[in-house]
């Protein structure tokens, strides 16, 4: 982009959510917050309600993971499906959980559609905790999948 990455800083962060801050500084989510705390698009280029149970998410064009894999609608679905299997996917609180019967369908390379069994006006806030990892992450590390068969509790 317009600037190069230079220099190194050393950080001491004793916050109990340090692990989560590292995650947020390492992975992207469909949305993030601006400095004032308001939600803005990140990995998602747009998120549009088709009706009160159907949310269309367009993935940002040209998004790539750190390992150079492209990030597509399939990546969103893969991460959604993996984490939906967990009973308690978010240690900070159940407010980040999607409805257990929610599903994600891929319509094209950059479009996925979330279908909820009931309206969920809080879903954009939940996207804040919806970390999207490269396929190789799930094939190798996957928050402990390889070791324990589940990533539950290994954020």
């Amino acid at each position, binding site marked *: 982009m317009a600037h190069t990455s230079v220099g190194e800083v050393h950080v001491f*962060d004793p916050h109990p959510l340090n692990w989560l801050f590292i995650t947020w500084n390492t992975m992207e989510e469909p949305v993030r917050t601006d400095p004032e705390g308001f939600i803005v698009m990140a990995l998602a280029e747009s998120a549009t309600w088709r009706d009160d149970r159907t949310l269309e998410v367009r993935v940002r064009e040209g998004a790539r993971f750190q390992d150079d894999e492209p990030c597509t609608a399939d990546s969103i679905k893969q991460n959604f499906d993996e984490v939906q299997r967990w009973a308690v996917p978010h240690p900070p609180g159940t407010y980040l959980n999607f409805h257990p019967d929610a599903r994600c369908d891929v319509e094209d390379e950059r479009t996925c559609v979330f279908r909820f069994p009931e309206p969920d006006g809080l879903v954009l806030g939940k996207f804040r905790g919806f970390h999207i990892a490269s396929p190789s992450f799930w094939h190798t590390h996957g928050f402990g999948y390889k070791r324990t068969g589940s990533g539950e509790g290994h954020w």
Partner: protein
Amino acid sequence: MLEANHDHNTERQARLARVVFRNDLTPAEALEAVCDREGEVDIVTEVSPADAKRVQSSENARLVTIDANRVLVGIFNQWPERDVPLSDRRAREALSLAVDRERLCSEVMDGYATPLASLTPSWCNGCFPGAQPRGRDTERARALLADAGWPRGRSLSLAAPASLAGVARAIAEDIRGIGLDVDVIEVADEGLIAGARTLIEKKLVPPWDVLVHAWFDLSSDLPPAVVHREFFGSDGAFRAGPPIPEFDRLFRDLVSCIDSDEARRRAEEIDRWCYEEAAVLSLCAPQALYAVNRNVEFKAYRTTFELADTEVSADHWSRRGTARERAGKAVAAPAG
């Protein structure tokens, strides 16, 4: 150690090539390194108000502050098994009117906090219009406490984790001013997990009347989703009492709304309910404080610790000297 992803294709590509999280220091060592030296620790998060002056007077560091999406409140124990009437709004309002929030913010928090009216900081969506923190009114507090039937001679048990003991002591002093004695229970670190478990599982009645508790929000958009729900909701971790049908109805109305303007109005309605019911002992919104070493530009966010905007000048230690010297420094500082 985190390394920049040079293929990131937005303006948010990291300004820094590397970030090293150090977990081999104590908070005191980290503060000393950032204040007294250069090139060891560039950013220290969670600086306490008590340490702010030291940072401000340092030659090597400056203090960066922000009104953060954090709340400090007292949870009322409203389980009917308790022998005090905290399920009665009048008793809760009495305690709320006893507290001097301005003094709490200026003296205990050293000015690094904002008084709260309800549960939503004024800079977030969903703070109800006209929200003003309750002012201290000891006469009305005494009358309300008597009307609620507080048992004669029964002191208030006020619990707090050790890290918030100073806040608890200040509140206790205020409450004693309305003629109610207060026992402060300081919960040691080793007792925090058991205490949290009691509160969250709701199988046992917690052994306190009011618990001083800190919480946070991950965005500024709809605080009830993360804050109010946790304190009052049917599945709220911090609800200390039976389910609250009125709150659950208001929250369902919020969840069912996908229009952002209408959702904001419904969030305000929830925050107003919390104020009118004195549903928590609203205290203050603490600021987030950072100590930042020289030649580092750090942008604080209201919500989380973000580094994408952080950059260093050409005079920064990591950009001076030879590559060999820089490599030597990196080796000397183990990754977190």
